[in-house]
């Protein structure tokens, strides 16, 4: 049986002490090992940003992509080898800004991926600029009078664009987050897990954690997980912040509908001698 350590390389994380990413890393590596997956069965595509630097200490088939470009790479990995467990990890900038279009279409497409969005409401690696989820009025280096743009709600977008699994976690609630990850990975379809991730550098370290703690509450056991509209309303709450699985439905995955991989994954198909005669007919 693989252990959590099997999913960690020897490289020491470079995240800031107290960064929310540590909790997320712990939750994910625990989830993967508890699901009985071997590192070689998992492919994970990383964005650029603090989360993306984590590519170096995740031990699996890693692909450190460009900013905003995790989902197209991850989608194709799944399409080409659907035997793999495929994850993508991005921040609020890569996920909702630079990669916004891919996000919309990944939700529609419903390939069996787990998409983790680290939401810290900032571009932290580039030293704290405004992000698509920065709150109105929040002052940053690039919003010196306070952000004037309405913050984007990733969960609501995922719900309207057709994602089949929509959840929110909190980086400090490691055990709860691990459970969300496990559910997301087991879900057959496009699973979005947005994680509220305290950035301790561009927010006051104590204040940010206290604020989250005071606002966060867990969705109750009886939450109607099959109701998209109710989930949408819930995801819009701002005074308090619900975490858990907001929505879940079964819909055929993109790859399950591909005629070319009904028997064997593309990556396992060998190239044989190909007879072109049938293709030439239409050109006669």
């Amino acid at each position, binding site marked *: 049986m693989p252990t959590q350590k099997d999913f960690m390389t020897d490289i020491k994380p470079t995240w800031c002490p107290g960064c929310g990413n540590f909790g997320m890393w712990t939750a994910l590596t625990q989830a993967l090992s508890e699901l009985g997956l*071997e590192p070689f069965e998992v492919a994970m595509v990383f964005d650029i940003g603090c989360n993306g630097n984590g590519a170096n200490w995740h031990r699996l088939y890693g692909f450190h992509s460009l900013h905003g470009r995790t989902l197209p790479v991850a*989608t*194709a990995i799944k399409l080409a080898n659907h035997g793999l467990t495929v994850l993508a990890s991005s921040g609020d900038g890569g996920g909702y800004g630079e990669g916004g*279009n891919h996000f919309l279409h990944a939700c529609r497409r419903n390939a069996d991926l787990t998409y983790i969005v680290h939401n810290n409401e900032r571009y932290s690696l580039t030293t704290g600029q405004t992000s698509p989820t920065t709150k109105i009025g929040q002052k940053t280096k690039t919003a010196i009078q306070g952000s004037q743009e309405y913050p984007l709600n990733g969960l609501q977008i995922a719900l309207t664009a057709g994602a089949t699994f929509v959840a929110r976690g909190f980086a400090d609630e490691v055990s709860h987050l691990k459970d969300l990850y496990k559910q997301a990975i087991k879900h057959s379809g496009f699973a979005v897990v947005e994680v509220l991730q305290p950035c301790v550098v561009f927010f006051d370290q104590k204040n940010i954690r206290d604020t989250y703690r005071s606002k966060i509450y867990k969705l109750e056991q009886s939450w109607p997980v099959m109701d998209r509209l109710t989930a949408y309303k819930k995801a819009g709450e701002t005074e308090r912040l619900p975490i858990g699985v907001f929505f879940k439905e079964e819909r055929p995955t993109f790859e399950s509908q591909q005629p070319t991989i009904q028997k064997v994954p593309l990556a396992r198909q060998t190239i044989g001698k190909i007879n072109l005669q049938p293709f030439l007919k239409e050109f006669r």
Partner: protein
Amino acid sequence: MKKTEVLTWKIGGIAGGGQQVAGLIFAKACARGGLYTFDSSEYPSLIRGGLVTYRLSISSQPLSAIYRSTNLLIALTQEALDHCVPDVISGGAIIVNSDTCNVKTSGLKGRTVWPISVKELTAQANVPALANNMIMIGMTTALFRYDIMLIRETIKEIFQGKDEKVIADNIRAAEFGYEYARKNFKAEVFPYHLPSSRRAGAKVLVTANDTVSLGAVASGCKFFVAYPMTPATSILHNLMGWSERSGMMVIQPEDEIAAIHMAIGASYTGVRAMTATSGGGFALMNEGLALAAMTETPLVIVEGQRPGPATGLPTWTEQGDLAYLARAGHGEFPRVILAPGDAAEAYPLTGLAFNLADRFQIPVFILLDKYLSEAHQSHQPFTDHFHIDRGDLLTDQQLLKLKEYKRYLITKTGISSRTIPGQMDGLHLANSDEHDEAGYTIEGFSPELRTKMVAKRLQKLPYLLPELPKPKLYGPKNAQLTLLGWGSTKGPVLEALKELTDVNYFHVTAPWPLSQPIMTKALSGCKKIIAVENNATGQFAQLLKGQTGIAVDDYWLKHDGAQFYPEEILAKATATGASKK
């Protein structure tokens, strides 16, 4: 028809009128009768209305370009008449639709004009308006004294599977036009005849987009992803249509950025992958090119050029993107550009593109243009099998024997062994950050390693260059005048060479990267070199000078949205002092 004679037929009307379909039927009927054909369409970027022309050159000898001089023109609208009349040669003929055209004979000296009412003839033939182009095909057949049976057979085959009535209507329309022309047009004033031979082998009519599609299937490409863009779109249509039979997965994503990243993702899993676009779409793919280069993921990209910048002339042709592709992507890394000169060359070059991408783990371009992508050329069927070389992909057994696997191991050739996700002992990080041999991110604090990794990627170049197709010489070994070109200028130049003495042509099918010794060996001893390019700045000549120091003596450039015609090359050559045969 004399052995070397080329006859050209042209029809002009409104977009959506079906001239292209009708014209292709005539072309296929010619191929069935043992003739060689080359066609070309001009059309605007809209669905209905506007001027559309279809042009077909026909010969009893192999043909590699479309000619301008037109023997028979069918003008269905005033716009078509005004635009196309200058191309009709003295002694040629024009069939004019009197419903819409003001038929003046002034300015048409030396050409026979036959006015007809398309509306009336369509009613007389008792066929739907959509079939009226076949009346024109029937007339054409009569005037060229071609075999109407071949037209009938071709219609039956092309429309196979369609409603019986559609087939019957089209055949009736063609036969009606045939009989009408025989009765009403004075055939003796039109001396151009097409011979037919029933012994002809089965030819195919293909564009370079078609042969790239066939080449991708024959190469074992399993993943094709593309966002529609003229003139590359028909590759997407072909491969999508064949998907279930070929086993290739074909995806249309949200944009070109997704397209190239998906191709990279699929290739990372060990599957042969390709994308196709035009210059504007490739502009969006730029960062993906750099990602493929840094992660050393094999990738084949088809780029069908059209005139830019920006939206440019979306449905016209140009060779304007060569210098751009040679330098595209940020940072420094090797890439290959293959530029087939015709549909036939595009087939084996597609096979080569996949092998080079796999062996050297680099991006490889197949560079086409609208002219090549959409012109149908008659050719013997393509059935060659490719030798498939997947490069250094480690098997599970080989991995077991390794003490430690490093994805980016520094080697003599710069090429490191690949593993694919799912292999137990091949774990690695494919990294867009600069990385060490294992794939882990490094910083500028490791300047020696950074220098080594840049050198590793560039080290592939000296091993790559000898694998590229060498410049190919056409015509005499020694000549007063040497023409130098790449890609689609080959066809018109080769046609012109048929008429010229003391002129030869070097065709470069791999315009990037260029080898100094190979180019010097090819071009040393040339008395006068003229770069023939379908662009405004002589991009290849500039790259050649920069890479090899070889300077051309002059440029023949064209950038008006059309390809060169053989007649233009011929005229330029004779003006430069070359003699005709």
